[in-house]
């Protein structure tokens, strides 16, 4: 022990980004070592594609003009985001809280938001990678699939969905006592998003009043952006093209950003950093 208490020269300051990467790296190692999470993240979404396709084909029978292949890819992306970001992170936040890791991290230099986002880095990264694979795989394998109408909008939809679901995962973990009960606490949002945000049941195949109610769900606008970004339309009409999709997407974009902001605010407000006693 020869180290003086104060270093002679001020050491280089860390940036929020470098702290996010340090947390993300450790979380990536933890995710790799969690077999259940890896299995769920890698296998489940792709296993769903098959059943999703038959569901969409059945919907196409009574919804003329429904783009089965386009819906298949964007819905699969939505489900990947739900499973890999939302459920996986709800479990991760709960586990870190119960191990008192979050409490310990708060004593360090990382700000609260950095701790939450840093924990989410590998989940978001993995989900985006899988979405890329789904998109590329879809274009290669599905003859009926056209190229995305507006890739920028698609990307915005992916990022907004990831942020929204991260904040919702933080909120869900606030009411999740143990890792084992995360399956129950995430169920309401999983069901609402899968059946109400156009993933398992395309909004365009619903009666208008039901579809409009579903658009009020927090997860619908962000996931709609994937649909509009790829298919170029919110419904079954022809693609509005790159320029036209911005108009079509203006309201969902605004709503998605508002929901993400509200969820982030609520997560900061109600997140629990320590286990309940």
């Amino acid at each position, binding site marked *: 022990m020869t180290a003086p208490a104060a270093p002679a020269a001020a*050491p280089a300051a860390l940036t929020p980004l470098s702290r996010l990467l340090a947390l993300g790296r450790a979380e990536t190692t933890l995710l790799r070592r969690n077999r259940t999470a890896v299995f769920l993240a890698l296998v489940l979404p792709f296993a769903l594609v098959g059943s999703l396709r038959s569901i969409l084909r059945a919907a196409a029978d009574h919804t003329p003009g429904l783009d089965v292949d386009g819906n298949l890819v964007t819905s699969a992306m939505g489900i990947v985001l739900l499973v890999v970001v939302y459920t996986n992170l709800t479990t991760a936040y709960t586990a870190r809280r119960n191990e008192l890791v979050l409490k310990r991290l708060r004593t360090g230099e990382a700000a609260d938001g950095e701790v939450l986002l840093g924990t989410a880095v590998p989940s978001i990264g993995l989900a985006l990678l899988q979405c890329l694979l789904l998109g590329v795989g879809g274009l290669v394998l599905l003859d009926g699939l056209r190229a995305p109408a507006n890739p920028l909008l698609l990307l915005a939809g992916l990022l907004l969905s990831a942020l929204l679901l991260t904040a919702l995962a933080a909120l869900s973990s606030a009411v999740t006592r143990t890792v084992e009960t995360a399956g129950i606490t995430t169920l309401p949002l999983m069901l609402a998003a899968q059946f109400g945000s156009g993933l398992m049941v395309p909004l365009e195949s619903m009666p208008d009043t039901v579809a409009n109610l579903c658009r009020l769900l927090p997860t619908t606008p962000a996931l709609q952006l994937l649909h509009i970004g790829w298919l170029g339309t919110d419904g079954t009409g022809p693609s509005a093209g790159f320029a036209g999709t911005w108009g079509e997407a203006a309201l969902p974009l605004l709503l998605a950003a508002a929901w993400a902001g509200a969820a982030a605010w609520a997560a900061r407000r109600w997140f629990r950093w320590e286990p309940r006693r």
Partner: protein
Amino acid sequence: MTDTSRPRPAVAARGLHRRYGPSGSGGFEAVRGLDLDVAPGELFALLGTNGAGKTSTLEVLEGLAAPSAGEVRVLGLDPRRERAALRPRIGIMLQEGGFPGELTLAETGRCWAGLTTGARAVDEALDLLGLLPRRAVRVKQLSGGERRRLDLAMALLGRPEVLFLDEPSTGLDPEARAAVWRLIRELRSAGTTVVLTTHYLEEAEELADRLAIMHHGRVVTGGTVAEVLAAHPARIAFELPERTGAHAALELPPLPGTSTALDGRRVLLRTPDLQGTLTELLGWAARHRVELARLDARSASLEEAFLAVAASGPDADPSAGPNVGPSAVPARPETLGSAA
């Protein structure tokens, strides 16, 4: 009336209150008007029974919790409002904190180094606590004592100027405790200010330059170990023989300044002057050929000071407690704002 010869305290608190829950009878006030000054380079121990408010106080000093009233400065900074400037200069070890069980020690260290300004090499930090041979082991496989040492190693990663340790040696075996004490002493010699809580009295006696004993949210006694002990009387205990025969009319001599408690034949004397009282007593016993059975004489110990404090009720007036001594935890009149 600022004393300029005195360096600005490394840690200072004035009128600190911390309340849990609603105001009124529904809530609980864990800290009730605490004043504290820790000089730079000093090792300061906060003692108290469980629930005295040690951890609640420490969390406010560390900036992990807001005080419900009062002011705190650490290195002249507000631990909450100036958190970003202060955190790189302090190290914190919680009473209970965790690291992910599935990471190895080296991976844990690498993550923390990425979160710590001016971090020393991870292996160097592990080596300080004798954990280098365990660097490739996962945290979940560590013993409780090893986890505490890992926690301390991470607190030391950034070579902090001020180190907050909440019960650093709880859960350690005697050998590890001795090693941690040695390390803490070395840190102090290198100029680190250390604030630690403990309920091991020998830990405070062994390490602390100054200490404060907390009880029900207040500091009731403070100062150097010698000052705290000086405020408490020494004790002499013995048993008188049966009052029959030669000892039928036996009376203790007058012992000025002492208080006497009798329980049957058992006598307990409390005296500020152990040597004088003991000389009187033994002289008297020799003159009267009295055998003082189970004779036990001892100076005040920190334990007695501690127990005396713990025995007092929750609403005891701190000013009525033992004399705090001249340099002990002064409550200077000026606010922290003007002192800083």
